[in-house]
Structures are given as structure tokens and as C-alpha cells.
């Protein structure tokens, strides 16, 4: 299962690669990284939407996570659009509601709890 992680913090790549090192080694998950909304869209276009799950931060300079979500959900071709999981800041109701109305499939709150994330990903994979 290919997961695209979108975050403006580049160290997120190292973090995910280490947190999921066993899963990556066992080829359970495959990760790709984009450091802005624009990069993410470019990646999706280039790789013909091979990522089944997109994990995106909301708070990014340039194209925000919400804009990215909107683009993916509305302009994705061919349907169905990939699953999008948004990372919201703790207690940020406004962004949570907006993301939900834009069609976000799931939510994670910052700081990301990797135990929960792993469980969620594994359930998704088995479905």
C-alpha cells in the first residue's frame, strides 16, 4: 500500500521512515513524500494516482492542506479519489470542520500518535 505524506517539514520523511521501518522492510507500506501541496499534486499527476492514501498536514505555506484536499477530491480523474487523512492541530475545530466538509476521510491530531496511526493504516489495509 502506497502512502503519500505531505508536510512542509522535511524531517517528517526521516521520522516516518524510522517509525515505519519494520513495515517498510516487510513491504507492508510504501511511503512517498511531498513537501508542499503543489509537490503533492505534481506527484499524483506523475504517478497516475498510484498512492491509495494521502496523509496531509493542513498548515503549510503556499497551497494549504485544505486546498490540496479540495483539489484531490474534486479534480481527481479517474474516480474514485484516493483516501485523504488530514493532520489538524490540537483543538482546531474550524479546520477540522472545513476538512470534513471537503471530504476528508479521517483525521489525526498533532502531535501525531504513531501507535494510533499504525492501527488506522492496518485496518485500512485489511479492508
Amino acid at each position, binding site marked *: 500500500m502506497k502512502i503519500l505524506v505531505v508536510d512542509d*517539514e522535511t*524531517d517528517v520523511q*526521516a*521520522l516516518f521512515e*524510522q*517509525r515505519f521501518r519494520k513495515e517498510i522492510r516487510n513491504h507492508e507500506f510504501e511511503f512517498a513524500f511531498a513537501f508542499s501541496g503543489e509537490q503533492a499534486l505534481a506527484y499524483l499527476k506523475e504517478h497516475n494516482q498510484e498512492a491509495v492514501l494521502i496523509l496531509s498536514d493542513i*498548515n503549510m*505555506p*503556499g*497551497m*494549504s492542506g485544505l*486546498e490540496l484536499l479540495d483539489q484531490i477530491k474534486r479534480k481527481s480523474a479517474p474516480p474514485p479519489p484516493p483516501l485523504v487523512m488530514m493532520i489538524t*492541530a490540537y483543538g482546531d475545530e*474550524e*479546520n477540522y470542520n*472545513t476538512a470534513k466538509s471537503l471530504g476528508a476521510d479521517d483525521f489525526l491530531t*498533532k*502531535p*501525531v500518535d*504513531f501507535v494510533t496511526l499504525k492501527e488506522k493504516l492496518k485496518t485500512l489495509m485489511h479492508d
Partner: protein
Amino acid sequence: MILQTILVLILLANLRKQTRKNAEGLMWERRVIAAIIVSSGLLVLHTTVSDAEVAATIASYGLSILIFYLVFTQQIFAPAKSIALAFLPLVAIKGVEDLLEIFHRPTFKSWYVYLESAALFALIWMIAMLILSSRQRKALERERIKAEERERELQITEKLKQQLEKQVQERTAEITRQKEELQKALHELKETQSQLIHSEKMASLGELTAGIAHEIQNPLNFVNNFSEINGELLDEMREAIEKGDYEEVKQLASDIADNQQKINMHGKRADSIVKGMLQHSRTSTGQKEPTDINALCDECLRLSFHGLRAKDKSFNAAFETKFDPQLPKIDVIPQEIGRVILNLCNNAFFSTNEKKKTAEGDFKPVVSIETMARDNGVVIIIKDNGSGIPQSILDKIFQPFFTTKPTGQGTGLGLSMSYDIITKGHNGTLQVESKENSGATFTIFLPNQNA
């Protein structure tokens, strides 16, 4: 005796006039009226009753002597003295003539010619004296009128003087009151100004804190995550050691070292943000110290971006940095220069956001910050593609209290304080270029004091 009585009556009439002028003259006026009545009575008696002629004449002269005596001795009759003096010779000669006629006719007859000539001289004397006295009186009268006029003028002047003094006092009081009010207003203004400067600092600090919360959270997440991972990696390393898989051990050790470096890096990042915040909130010590302008610009740009994001969820903009790696450290007051950069970044982001609200299509807000080393200092360029500044207000933006933001949203002190910090505080320059609807560029030049 008839002539004498007439003269005495004229004198008495004059005396009566004098008594009227005088406040204490009432008693004397009565006496003078009594004398007029007695005199007139004696004249009537003299002319009508032939038997009483002698007695009336004697009484009349006795009364005349008394009157003349009083005229020359009483202060109240002093103004009539000249008339009395004019009449006196004629009355005296007539008296001698009449008395001689009564008591000694032979002498009267032999002296008659002399007495008549003396009477003629006395008459001339009287006329001359009367003319003289009339002139004197007129002159005196003129003098008196003049004196009265002077007195009146003096009174008027005095009145005017009092009025003027009163006006001066009133005006002085008014001016004093106004001065006090002005001083009070000035004091209040000064207080308000210092409060405004303080609130301007606090406002930019408030914008900071929201950004800081976000900016600190990210590095702390990394610190927590990487240290947890390192714990796990150490467990795995122990297992690998037990297994004797030293290739694995080496790989794990290398990962742990990398993570350790990241922990350190993000820890320092959080540290510098907190330090930056402290520096910003601290009252400026006014101490210039060697400062890495690139780091300061980066920090302020990020704080500004995240601060605005935290305040306004709909806000977003891209930011670009182009830092000159050869930029030397220069001596500046870091918290003050930080405030200027932060303020300019805030304005730039605000402006792009304003344009985004009205712009059609795919407007991409971008704020960029660029640094360049010069022979004699450092140039910082903060550029945005926002709504720009109309030409008409371009020369006003550095004036205190000038703001285009709605009331309550901007103090109007940001740019004026920035201008003062750069020009007065650091001998640098702050210039602006802008075209309406195509953004603004602020260029700061800071001279290197050591170069």
C-alpha cells in the same frame, strides 16, 4: 445813604451766592437773608418816615461795618472780598459824608467838595476794581472749568485703567487656565504616546506568540518522536548484539546517531524561537551586538507567517528566502531590527491577503526576503506581490499614526517606529517602492560599523 444801601444789597446778594456754593453755608445764608431784609427795611424806613431818617442811616452804616468786617474775616465769604474791596471806598466816603451831614454840618459843608471828588475817585476805583475782579473771576472760572475737565478726564482715565486692569486680570486668569489645560493635555499625550508604543510592541508580540506556539510545537514533536525512536532502536540494538548480528548493530548505531543529531537540531530550533521571543518582548537594552541577519530574517519571516495563520485560518501565502551565505555578522540591536523585519513581513503578508480577497483567478500570494552583502554593510529586501501602496500615500506611510487599516486594527506606529529604528538607531536607510496592485518592496540598508 441810598447809594450805600444799594451797594450793600449788591454785596449781600453776592454773599448769598457764596453761601449757596458752600456746604456749611446754610447758617450764613439765613444771616445774609436777614441782613438783606434789615437793609431793605432800613432803606424803606429812611425814605418813607422822615423822623426815622437819622436812626435808619446810623443803623444802616452800623450794619455795613459789620458786613464788611465779616466779609474780610470769614473764610466762607473769601470769594466776595474783591467786590467788597471795590465797594468799600465809596461806602466809606458816603458814610463819612452822611455822618458829617447829620452830626457836623459846617465841616460837611467845607469838606463837601473834597468828599465829592473823593467819591468820584472811589467810584472810578470801584468800577476799575469790578472790571478787574470780573476778569479775574472769569479767568478763575476758566481755570476751574479746565480743572474740572482735567478731573473728569482723570476720572475717565482712572475708570479705563481699572477696566483695563480687570480685563488684564481676567485674560491672565484665562491664559493661566489655558496653559494649565495645555500642560495637562501635553502630559496626557505623552502618556498616551508611551502607551501606544508599548501597545505597538505588545501587538507585534501578540502576533508573535500565536506563531511561536506553532513554531515550537513542530520541533518539539520531532524531539519527542526521534527520542522515542532512539529508545526503540536501542532495544533492537541489544537484541542484535545478543544475536551477534554486528552489521545490524552498526546500521542501528548509525541511525541512532542521525536521530540524535536531529533531536539536537530541533531542540536548538525551539531554543532559538524562545530566545527570539524573549528578545522581542524584552525592553531593548540598546546594546548593539554582532548579529546573524540571515537567521534573524528567517526567524521573523516564519514567526510572522505562522502568527498570521494562527489569527486567520483562511490566510495563506508562499514565502521565499534568498539569503546571501557570505553575509557578515554586523553590529545591530537584534530585538529592534527583529521588530522592523517582523513588522515589514506582517505588512507584506497582510497586503497579499488583501489582494487575494479581491483578485480573480489563480493569484498566488508570495512574500520574499533577500539579503545581500555590500562593501559597507548589509541590504535586506522584503518584497510582496500584494495590493501595493497607492502613489498618493507613499510619502505618508512612515508618518506616525498613519494607517490604512480599519480603526483598532493598526496603531499606525509600526512603520514610523521601523523608520526611526533603522535611520536614527542604526544610521541606515529604509526605502519603499510600490505600484498599486502589483506589490511593494521595502529595502533596508544597515551600515557595517566595523567595516
